[in-house]
């Protein structure tokens, strides 16, 4: 009875206790790393927030339209706060990964190795998307203002077309960076973009043939009263 008790209860309990003793140093190391990560994250959050505010990042973001984008997404914090918070969480995540590795559990190790290798792609894709958005806004607004000043009735459409084309191009590049559907994305983009251009060409050709004829006739025959320029010297 004693032997049975020893084998069924005491030995497994003893082994479990030994395993725990063996695992405990790793667990404590892991916990310590995590705590350091949390503290460091908080410290860097404060430092980076001060740096971003000192260089006037919020003003720059308002100018470039990033603030509009963020507000549309329902976020009310400033760009400085968001970026500083991102720095904090990146630090915490990095330390969490190191902490998990310190536990020396093979399955988790393999999983995180693959995750770590993929992280730079996510980072680059996010940067491409951000730049795509900023450039799209910039060129879209420039095209809109130039079209309005030229008196083109479809100025709004032109502005939006330029903006979305630039953003679409950036999105394609970002997806390619992430390795999602690689060739498929590029081909799809080429088909959509080519299709839009072809559709516009046909639409302009068919819909605007009278206008085009009138324009060419006017150019050849010389300006009519309507086309005559104002005799004003602005400067």
């Amino acid at each position: 009875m004693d032997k049975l008790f020893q084998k069924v209860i005491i030995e497994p309990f003893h082994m479990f206790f030994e395993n725990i003793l063996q695992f405990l140093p790793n667990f404590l190391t892991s916990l310590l790393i995590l705590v350091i990560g949390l503290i460091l994250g908080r410290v860097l959050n404060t430092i980076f927030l001060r740096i971003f505010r000192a260089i006037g990042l919020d003003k720059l973001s308002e100018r470039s339209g990033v603030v509009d984008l963020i507000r549309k997404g329902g976020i009310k914090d400033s760009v400085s706060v968001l970026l500083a918070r991102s720095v904090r969480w990146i630090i915490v995540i990095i330390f969490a990964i190191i902490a998990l590795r310190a536990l020396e559990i093979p399955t988790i190790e393999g999983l995180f190795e693959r995750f770590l290798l993929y992280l730079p792609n996510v980072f680059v894709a996010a940067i491409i998307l951000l730049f795509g958005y900023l450039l799209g806004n910039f060129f879209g607004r420039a095209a809109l203002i130039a079209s309005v000043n030229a008196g083109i009735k479809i100025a709004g459409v032109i502005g939006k077309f330029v903006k979305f084309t630039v953003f679409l191009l950036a999105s394609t590049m970002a997806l390619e960076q992430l390795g999602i559907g690689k060739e498929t994305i590029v081909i799809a983009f080429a088909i959509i973009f080519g299709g839009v251009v072809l559709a516009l060409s046909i639409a302009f050709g068919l819909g605007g043939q009278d206008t085009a004829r009138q324009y060419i006739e006017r150019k050849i025959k010389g300006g009519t009263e309507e086309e005559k320029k104002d005799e004003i010297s602005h400067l």
Partner: protein
Amino acid sequence: MEKYLIKEEALEKTREIKEADLLVGIPSFNSAHTIGHVVQAVREGLSRYFPDNRSVIVNCDEDSTDGTMDVVKNTAVNSSGAASLSHKGNHVFIIVTPCHGLPIKGNVFRTFFEIANMLNVRACLVVDSDLKSITPEWVELLMKPLLVEGYQYVAPLYYRHKYDGTITKNIIYPLTRSLYGKRIRHPMGKDCGFSGELARFYLSKDIWGTDVAKFGLDIWMTTTALANGFKVCQSFLGTKIRNAKFVNTDLSSMLYQVVGTTFNLMEMYEQVWSTVSGSEEVYTVGSQRAVGMEPVFINLDRMIDKFKLGMKELLKIWEVVLPEETMNFLYRLTYMQGREFYIPDEVWTKIIYSFAIASHRNVFNTEHLIKSLTPLYLAKLASFVRETWESSSSEVEEKIEKLCLVFEKEKEFLIKNWRVERK
């Protein structure tokens, strides 16, 4: 060894001349048809009105392709019979040089300032190379206040048609006057006189790599003289007629260049203009005549259509820049027809001040911001033309005077909002 930013050949000639009393700068670009007449008029003016002074005419060229510099060289040879480019005839020397570095206005004027400094001149004047209406009297009118009456900057005053210089009339003159408190009627006049001391002061300023040096030099020279306490006056030169090919037709670029530079200078001289209130007359040489009113063609409907298109498409930009009450007025303006279409001076003043504040706060890219002003300017222009269609030139001047007084009255709005950080 001192480094000068002028071409070696011009440097040699300047060293040969050693010293001079007067310098006349003629910037040029593809002006072969007109520059000969300008050089002749200047030479004659110098000989007739300042015969006892050593004078230098400097033509600095911005990469002309039509032989402009050859015309100047030939004019110099023909008028004196001498074979040299830099020669002595009635104490008038001529230096002909391409500009150093990029062919931009800033580098051309820097050449004039450098040579003026090297020759230690007492007075300088600059005249455009595309002038058809210049006479020898212009030299006297721009130089005499500097040499005899102790002024340091002489701005030009021209006789102009009521619809000439509409950006100056509706924006630049009222704004500059309310900012710096002096009534300089043509702050962007390209033909002006300045003392040797002021030339050295200009040379000491570090603006040569900026947009001001590219296309805002005229307003910069006037503003710098005003903001730094130099003694300023203006001189009536008569009618200004230029070679038509020089007229720039891209309105939004024009606005960006002149209004952008004025806003830029507001940043530079905030400490000066924020303490000025009201304005005062400046001493004026010569007497003003009324100008004939030839009928001109203006398509008001096209201007109003562009404003309405702007209201439809640029609303998001304007709503950020303009105060609520101004926006409410603009909504109503969209529905106004015929004679009803009118922008009061108070509203226009608020629009310009609000754009200056938005530029200061970097709300948008500056070029986008100022180019988005174009439809509003066209609306103001349409309103101005409707209001003054039957008016004589003196009546138009009265209207501009009223606008200027509103700019001065509303300056408090500018100062108050300029200092408020964006929420």
